[in-house]
């Protein structure tokens, strides 16, 4: 069976595993749904009230029955009711998701716009001072946590220019594009910083590999201009690892924006997870984690599909 067929077949299985893990994890939290909702007041309930609430939440049933009815609900879009918001978890998640999606997309643009030219530039000047400078910057970029980048940007702006970036506000792109971009650009740079460094390193490495290939040497010996050799002949083939990296990183950006959203006080999905954890809103934690994991898996699957489409030579079934 080819790798891709196996990958498509295992996708629902892994998703099922993810749902079991999330379900079990939340049930391992000390106390039950009643304690989670009522807090210390749960201790004041009479046995009859507790039994009635247990029946209402379905926690008086065996664990497998509970899982099955929860899973059926999830498949129909019912991720439970958030205790702190008093609304269905899915509704809140879908309200917050556009911000995180936009942040991830903008960070990816920042990373590719900076990382790709820097990587190509360094590869064409292999082992020269400019190559070394790019490599050092890339290494430092990759070693700097995004929340450190965020704090340093905020400090540089406030100390150097006496301005503070807008925080805690979010205007949807369609309502006011300019205002939206103004609010999102600094978080996008912050989140895209380390990613740009990774793109630089991987594109430099891939370009170096491609530039030493026979067909590039042939193109050069035929007198094709250097610029054309680099951008038209070499770069398309060097893009494959960059596409793979971008896809995988995009999945991480969707889930990993929690720190950047926290620094800039952006009401995105990452911050929602954090709020839910800190306020012990387990239905919301469960819903968010499941939603992000699902997106992450879908993105990874699409990356694998793109990988095969981009390079027909790749026979993943054989190499694995």
């Amino acid at each position: 069976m080819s790798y891709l067929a196996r990958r498509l077949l295992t996708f629902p299985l892994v998703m099922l595993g993810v749902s079991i893990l999330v379900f079990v994890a939340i049930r391992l939290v000390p106390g039950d749904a009643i304690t989670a909702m009522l807090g210390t007041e749960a201790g004041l309930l009479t046995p009859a009230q507790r039994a009635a609430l247990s029946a209402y939440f379905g926690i008086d049933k065996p664990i497998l029955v509970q899982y099955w009815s929860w899973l059926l609900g999830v498949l129909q879009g019912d991720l439970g009711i958030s205790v702190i918001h008093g609304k269905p978890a899915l509704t809140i998640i879908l309200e917050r998701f556009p911000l995180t999606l936009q942040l991830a997309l903008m960070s990816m643009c920042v990373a590719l716009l900076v990382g790709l030219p820097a990587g190509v530039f360094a590869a064409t000047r292999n082992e020269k001072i400019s190559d070394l400078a790019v490599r050092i910057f890339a290494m430092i970029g990759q070693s700097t946590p995004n929340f450190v980048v965020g704090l340093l940007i905020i400090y540089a702006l406030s100390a150097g220019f006496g301005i503070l970036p807008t925080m805690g506000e979010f205007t949807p792109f369609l309502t006011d594009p300019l205002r939206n971009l103004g609010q999102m650009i600094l978080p996008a740079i912050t989140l895209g910083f380390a990613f740009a460094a990774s793109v630089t390193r991987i594109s430099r490495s891939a370009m170096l590999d491609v530039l030493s290939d026979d067909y590039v040497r042939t193109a050069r010996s035929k007198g094709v201009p250097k610029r054309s050799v680099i951008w038209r002949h070499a770069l398309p083939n060097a893009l494959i690892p960059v596409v793979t990296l971008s896809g995988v990183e995009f999945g991480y950006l969707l889930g990993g924006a929690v720190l950047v959203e926290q620094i800039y006080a952006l009401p995105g999905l990452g911050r929602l997870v954090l709020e839910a954890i800190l306020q012990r809103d387990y239905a919301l934690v469960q819903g968010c984690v499941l939603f992000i994991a699902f997106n992450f898996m879908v993105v990874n699957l699409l990356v694998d599909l793109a990988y095969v489409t981009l390079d027909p030579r790749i026979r993943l079934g054989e190499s694995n």
Partner: protein
Amino acid sequence: MSMLRAIFSHSSGRIGGTIVVIYVVVALLGMFGVTPYNPLQQFRIDRLHAPNAVYWMGTDLFGRDVASRLMNGIGQSFLVAFCSVALATLAGTVLGLTAAWFGKAWDGIVMRIMDVLLAFPAILLALLIIAVVGPGTWTSVAAIAIVYTPIFTRVVRGPALSIKAREFVDAARTFGSSRRYILTRHLLLNLVAPLTVQVTLALAWSLLTEAGLSFLGLGTQPPASSLGLMLADSRNLMENAPWLLIFPAVAIMISILGFNLLGDALRDILDPKTRRSAP
């Protein structure tokens, strides 16, 4: 010794190795309380003092010496990073080796569980674990270890499968070597190279994850110090007391840089195929 010589003759290895050695010494000093001042002692009349000859890195809002807290914080962050990577390496190696050796159902079960764990972005899985167990230093250790175990399992299983099929393993079986002997002497010894590279890089990631969790208030809890916690504390004071931000920020960057450089050097040394186009 030859490995040390190889690391120190490699440019990245020399810089990375030196950084790591210095950090380990500072971490040990910080962990065992060999700091200029007690990291928890509050010099109330010297609150938010800029760096000077007495307080090399200044003092914080409570008048605590930043240099001492930084040393202690490095110790704390390194403790979490080393413990979590040690646990992940142990668990990943055992799971990867046994999955490769026994194959069939056990391999299927182990690898599907690892697939499930890999289906989460790292920080999200760590957050889920912390949501269940509650924040704290040892929760961070467990969370980071669980997050990185699948990576070690994969790193071990792949090469272990190919080594298992080699003639010398068949020969060892023919000579009647025990399963444990073959697993530890033949398979594990041949996996030292990829594991070493992975451990070094994982230390960089776990430092990063620990700092992130502490920054969010879900890792090390006050009054103990950690690099992420110090950065979180600096947020509201950075304009008036930039040293509270700059020193921990630089400390965290250089520590991760050190491990990344060392990891790259080890990869070059142990896997000559990557040397030509090393990023």
